């Protein structure tokens, strides 16, 4: 018995290790290469022998310095793009989270005529990839003076449909006993106060989840940012801007700089994750009603 258990454990751990390796390798490669002295693109081949290798031959911080150098910023204004993305992410995150919270609360707690049909329609709509409508949105935005190629436009696109992904939050709200709302009403709360003082604090894990996922959107989106910004170089987000570095005409010179940029991009997201993971993991519903 014990032997069999060991064998099965061993197999499980081997599989997990392989998976972990597959996950970590690209990241490791990316980080290592971002400190690489040798320039050049994807393949690292020795100039003389032509032999390919993985580990960089020498390390430097120059790739990172270069990102912020005045010379580079004329072509690729990385700090500015970071700041752009951060701004957009911040507003997208706040607006989206509020939308999701409101939508979920309404669908979970209020009873109105078209509730079910609305929920179904929203669910189906939410399944279409967002960029499907991008051309239509592009033209619509062009109609509004001042909106074309602006950050406001991006924020609107990113957060406008956020309510459609009510599903997880609503599911969570549904698990909060309705008696807690009623107790709050009797204690003197308005619906709004009940929402703010009881429902939202209890939904902390999902609120955190929503904050994280909506904050990430602008950092990884490429299609929408590219379509909206076109040639408006100073308004680029990092995802789209960095990609400029690895276009065919640039890649040989800028590849390692691109990698350095990619590493830096992951830092704010990682920090956010670290800050929020506590409330993400910790459940708070115990002991509400008889358990």
């Amino acid at each position, binding site marked *: 018995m014990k032997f069999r258990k060991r064998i099965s454990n061993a197999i499980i751990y081997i599989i997990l290790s392989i998976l972990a390796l597959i996950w970590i390798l690209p990241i490791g490669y990316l980080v290592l290469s971002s400190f690489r002295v040798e320039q050049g693109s994807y393949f690292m081949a020795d100039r003389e022998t032509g032999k390919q290798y993985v580990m960089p031959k020498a390390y430097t911080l120059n790739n990172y310095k270069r990102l912020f150098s005045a010379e580079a910023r004329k072509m690729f204004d990385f700090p500015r793009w970071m700041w752009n993305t951060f701004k957009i992410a911040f507003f997208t995150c706040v607006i989206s989270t509020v939308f999701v919270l409101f939508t979920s609360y309404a669908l979970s707690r209020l009873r109105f005529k078209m509730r079910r049909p609305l929920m179904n329609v929203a669910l189906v709509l939410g399944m279409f990839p967002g960029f499907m409508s991008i051309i239509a949105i592009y033209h619509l935005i062009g109609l509004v003076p001042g909106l074309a190629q602006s950050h406001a436009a991006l924020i609107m696109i990113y957060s406008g449909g956020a309510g459609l992904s009510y599903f997880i939050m609503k599911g969570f709200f549904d698990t909060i*006993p309705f*008696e*807690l709302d*009623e*107790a*709050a*009403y*009797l*204690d*003197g*709360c*308005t619906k709004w*106060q009940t929402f703010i*003082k*009881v429902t939202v*604090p*209890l939904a*902390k894990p999902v609120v955190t989840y929503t904050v994280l996922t909506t904050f990430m959107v602008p950092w990884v989106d490429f299609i929408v940012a590219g379509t909206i910004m076109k040639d408006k170089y100073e308004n680029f987000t990092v995802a789209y801007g960095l990609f400029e570095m690895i276009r065919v005409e640039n890649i040989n010179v800028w590849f390692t700089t691109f990698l350095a940029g990619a590493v830096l991009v992951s830092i704010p997201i990682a920090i956010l994750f670290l800050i929020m993971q506590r409330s993400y993991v910790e459940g*708070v*519903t*115990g*002991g*509400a*009603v*008889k*358990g």
Partner: protein
Amino acid sequence: MATVTLKELKKVYDGNVVAVQAFDLEIADKEFIVLVGPSGCGKSTTLRMVAGLEEITEGELYIGDRLVNNVAPKDRDIAMVFQNYALYPHMTVYENMAFALKLRKEPKEVIRQKVQQAAEILDITDYLQRKPKALSGGQRQRVAIGRAIVRDPQVFLMDEPLSNLDAKLRNQMRAEIIKLRQRIDTTFIYVTHDQTEAMTLGDRIVIMKDGFVKQIGTPQEVFNHPANLFVAGFIGSPQMNFFDADLIREGDNYKVRVLGREFWLDEERQGILRSKDMDSRRVKFGVRPEHIVLCHDLALEPHFHATVDISEMMGSSVHLHVESEGQEVVIILETIALPDVYRAGFRHGDPINFTFGGNVIHLFDAETEESLLL
């Protein structure tokens, strides 16, 4: 502190479920009212209408002199204790109790005092900094009550507050509610399906069935003068004995025929029936197990012959199930008053004779099931 008046209250849920109807009740200031009845009879619905958690379909509800049909729960100045406590899990016990006061923007010091005081009454001062999940069921129930009393509400509502507790704790908490009631002296509406709780707590009891009020009265009234068959059967444990019987009028006098015997009613009952000019009819005859006694003097009328089926020894009393004329009769006998022959216990098949006083019998119309004696 306030009166509560329910006028022709009616509740129809979506899908035409009539949960409560024709509910008429005037609750006096500081009165303790208990709503009791079997599951699904509309007790919670009534309470929730008073709380404002359920819309009133028809009728009027007054708290004090104020019509509150369309007043939001938060403006009714009532507190409610829920069956499953409904404590805010993300707040400590202290915060739970202080919540309503904070919303009312009372000064911090006042809040601290009130919470402290309530916590002392309920003996929960040691748990004030704990979260609800770190409390036992009984402790949570105390916190739930504490949360209600700090508010000093006009009306105190409780929906089966003890039904989640085990039997011992339930008895203890019941006693504490009686004490609490003496200390905080306000209007209470208390829902339970347990008739013992109803009898021990209520100034008046409202007995409900299928959305209708079957009787309203003090514990003594509903016990001694049940208005109908349902109340007679619901109040008292073990249940009242019922037999099919005939009420027979001879001139201005009434007698009953039951379990193969005929006997004249007592003067009081004769008088009531006479004043109603009641005719002979089929009736349900009721007598409580504790009002039946063993009969040793066979000259006494009426008396009935029976054989013992089973006997349940309860300690201070014996519950005797006997058979007479093919009908089961339950008799409660005080152990201490048992004649020597029965000290050792009853055996299956033992013949006995029993009787009861004329002043303890109940008569209900066989068709309407209403009492003939009210």
